[in-house]
């Protein structure tokens, strides 16, 4: 089970990697929609950084080498 979650974590990180370079994260020349007055790429980039941090934390719990 732990190995499956580890692979899922890697999969999610790779998905985020792909999304980073699409208009989903960096729409060229557009800063809408704003969130609390923050332009799109900024708040989306911040959210992405937090998600990656959370995935890294999850990864430490299920990493195959955790028991060594």
């Amino acid at each position: 089970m732990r190995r499956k979650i580890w692979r899922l974590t890697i999969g999610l990180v790779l998905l985020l990697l792909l999304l980073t370079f699409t208009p989903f994260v960096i729409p060229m020349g557009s800063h809408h929609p704003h969130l609390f007055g923050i332009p799109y790429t900024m708040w989306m980039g911040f959210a992405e950084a937090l998600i990656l941090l959370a995935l890294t934390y999850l990864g430490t719990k299920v990493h195959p080498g955790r028991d060594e």
Partner: protein
Amino acid sequence: MLNLLLIIGTLYVLALVYLTWIARDNDRSSANYLMAGSNVGSFLGLFTFAATLFSTFTILGMPDFFRVHGVGAWIFIAVSDMFMVFGILMVGYYVRRKIKESNTSYYGMAGFMQHCYRSRTAGIVVFLGAFLFLIPYVAIQIKGVVLFLDQAFPNKLPIWLWASLMLIIMVIYSELGGLKAIMYSDVLQGILLLLVIWVIGIVCLNRLGGVSQMFEQVHRVDESLLSVPGPKGLFDFQFLLGSLIGIVMIPFTQPQVSTRLVIMKSHHALYRTAVALGFFAILVILPTLFIGMYGAVHYENDSTADFLGKTLITDQLPLIGVLVLLGLIAAAMSTADSQIFGLGAEIRSLLKGEDDHALRSTRGAILIFAVICLVFSLFSPDELVLLARLSFTGTALLAPMIFLGIFSKEAARCSWMPWLTMLAILLFILSSFNIIPNKLGQIRTDLILLISLGGIAVIAGYGSGSRRVSGKSQGANF
């Protein structure tokens, strides 16, 4: 203000002396001097990783990058750093396991690659790559701080003397206390860096009236700062991708970071450090956004030096201004000492023979590297962020060769890989100086080189029977 700097600066130097004193050890072996006994816990690990990674580039470079190129700078550095942190977790384990399984004494990636490829060329290529791209980076950091000091205290000391003083202090505590002294000072320097950058960040944010007000004012100045690619079109897909690859590879290709990966006392300690480092990265980079946006609103058309001088010093209370200067010096020293020391460790990893003799040569090499950095800092250009990126990308070219060495059972069969890497480094340097085109068609040369080398390494790895370094064998701790 100079008197205040002298007082607080003296206290800071005394703190460094104290830390060097407690780091001193009777055991003067290479394992202890260069690798701190490979017994580093997660608290020390966090600060030493953080202080080594976040340098002058963070305090001086990032605010200016936000000011000139806009919010895309967050993707360029913060998001890339988060992928790097996950990379430490994902690949760091296998690097440590491979080293453990090799039953060799690890002092540096150069020596380890020499072992993996059973080829001296492999070791030399890794060392040369690190040397070629780290020396300019160390030099530019010192130069950045020295120019700043010169601007804050015009005609008090010549530039070469500021630079020499910094390097002399660094070399003294590095030579006396070894890596342990560097890591203890990293704790002090990391805390100082975080404190200073947040104080300035909060001051700037308050003056702009809060987060949404800040972006509103930036919108009025230049709307294109709020999206990619930014006003000058820098943050296009290729630039961001190349930067991300370069940054993610830092822990495996830059000796000052790869050493820290290896010397953690356990995998657990490394994992905890990785998560804390990610948190630290967000904490450090966020206030540089506030400082940069403040600059975009108030100092839109100023030069970089004027913007930084006004925002970080003139607009602040004298005590804060002095703390900024000290924070800058600390940031430059904490990265530069580790990089120079890391290059020394790489030399040690290539040396054979009696440990005492090899360590003496290594300490001599550290001194020579410091002098080279000093000379370089007096003559280098002052494009801080772009030279930092050159350093990330340049050392990233070593990554395919290093990963092939780590993940392949039979790396020795691929003895051509170090030569190919050397060729790629040469082409990258030529393209950086515009001697050959820096784009082929629409694609950047550095990206072509990185992807080609990576692809070749993957194919060669499968061809020579690659494996994931087994996680099933016995033993764990280093």
